[in-house]
């Protein structure tokens, strides 16, 4: 479980996050949604420590993340896996080397165990036997899946996905969503997903937090979101023709 408490952030004199309080539950796909530029990425970066928030704290299963020493923070970070929007695969490494990198750095597994684990997670993301390929040889969807394999290879307790299906065709995007959902259930991770993809919201939104102009504007799930009495949220949702049709407008 991840708890965000009173999190605020300023860039210079511009406040971008306002007292965010939210709890992300274990074994669930927690979605942070909202339009671009409203603070989703800043919130996620604050949660994983890429940005130090001006105010507030993030708790990983009760352990504070920002008000501790760098060494203690590194120990928590080793329980985190993250899929980046642009995948952030290391260009000069093969797929196999990319995926096994967290194992090389963070575990004492034997070579054989690492090879087996890499083969298993690549199979799990439906990309068996591509260890020898380089990221530049892969399609966008394959890169995302390799990024996901690298994020889960060390069995993280917390999985963060930043716009996991941006730039993908609807079918591949749906496959990625399904994969993240399955992995969350299989490994029991606390999964936090930044998205503005309305298909994802309806398909895997077990918990949904709507961020609007840096504020937590609404909280619910995919079965309550269409009925939510919230003007800004409805405007956001109705940017999709499918949602408008679903709502009979």
């Amino acid at each position, binding site marked *: 479980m991840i708890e965000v408490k009173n999190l605020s952030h300023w860039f210079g004199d511009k406040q971008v996050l306002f007292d965010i309080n939210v709890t992300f539950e274990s074994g669930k796909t927690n979605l942070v949604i909202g339009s671009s530029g409203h603070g989703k990425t800043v919130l996620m970066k604050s949660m994983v420590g890429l940005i130090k928030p001006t105010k507030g704290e993030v708790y990983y299963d009760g352990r504070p993340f920002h008000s501790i020493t760098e060494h203690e*923070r*590194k*120990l928590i970070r080793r329980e985190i896996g993250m899929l980046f929007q642009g995948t952030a695969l*290391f260009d000069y490494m093969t797929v196999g080397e990319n995926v096994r*990198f967290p194992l090389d750095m*963070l575990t004492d597994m034997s070579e054989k165990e690492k090879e087996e684990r890499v083969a298993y997670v690549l199979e799990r993301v439906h990309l068996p036997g591509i260890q020898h390929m380089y990221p530049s040889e892969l399609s966008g969807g394959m890169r995302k899946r390799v990024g996901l394999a690298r994020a889960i290879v060390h069995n993280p307790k917390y999985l963060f996905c930043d716009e996991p299906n941006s730039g993908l065709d609807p079918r591949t995007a749906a496959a990625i969503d399904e994969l993240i959902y399955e992995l969350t259930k299989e490994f029991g991770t606390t999964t936090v997903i930044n998205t503005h993809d309305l298909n994802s919201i309806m398909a895997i939104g077990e918990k949904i937090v709507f961020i609007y102009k840096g504020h937590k504007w609404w909280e619910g799930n995919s079965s309550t979101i269409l009925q939510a009495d919230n003007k800004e949220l409805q405007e956001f949702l109705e940017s999709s023709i499918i949602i408008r049709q679903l709502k009979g407008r």
Partner: protein
Amino acid sequence: MLLEGVFFHIGRFFIMLKRCFARPEKMSVYWREFVRNIEWMGIGSLLLVVVIAVFVGAVTTVQSAYQLVSSLIPVSVIGSIVSDSTLLELAPTITSVVLAGRIGSRLASELATMRVTEQIDALEVMGIHVEAFLIAPRIVAAVVVIPVLVVLAAIIGITGGMLIGHFTDIVPMHDFIQGAQETFRPMNVIICLTKAYVFSFIIGSVSSYVGFYTEGGALDVGRASTTAVVASSLIILVFDYVIAEVLLT
């Protein structure tokens, strides 16, 4: 304002260096990085260094002969001029400035690309000592490889000058060798090596610094590459003077 910027960069540069000495998570992975860098820096630059050294030696011989018009001056002086100037200045400085272009620009663009494509963020999220993992192996590889290339350039430069002088009837080989031996001082070799080590550290560290702290997009990667070459070359020239002043006067 300018002075403030200079102090900011100097301060951040030394903080980066300090962080490079963090305890490695896995020595084997750092070693792999070191070897990879040795390979592209050393083998990749070999042909360039050889070609430049041959021509620098040849041109120095021809120009020295052009300036020595008096029949009172023995032609063996050409040997001493070529060997001394190659050891003291041409091999370490010209080779290092050329390598600042080749190695420095690649170091900077590689790290800058990693920064703008979130690869460095991915390492940070994993809880890895980013500066130690990315920068230390590059600096150490530069400090190991570049002095070897400089020594090679000195040997090839002097040999090239001697052969060109011999085959163009400027100075017979035995006169060239006699002249080189007459004025040879072990101090010249020490100065050559001192310059090689200082310059290699400058290329490795300054280029890494520029690349590592790049912000923005693809355009900024190009800018980082250019800045790294210009900054490294200028700092090399400043230290060239400082070393000459300290060791020769």
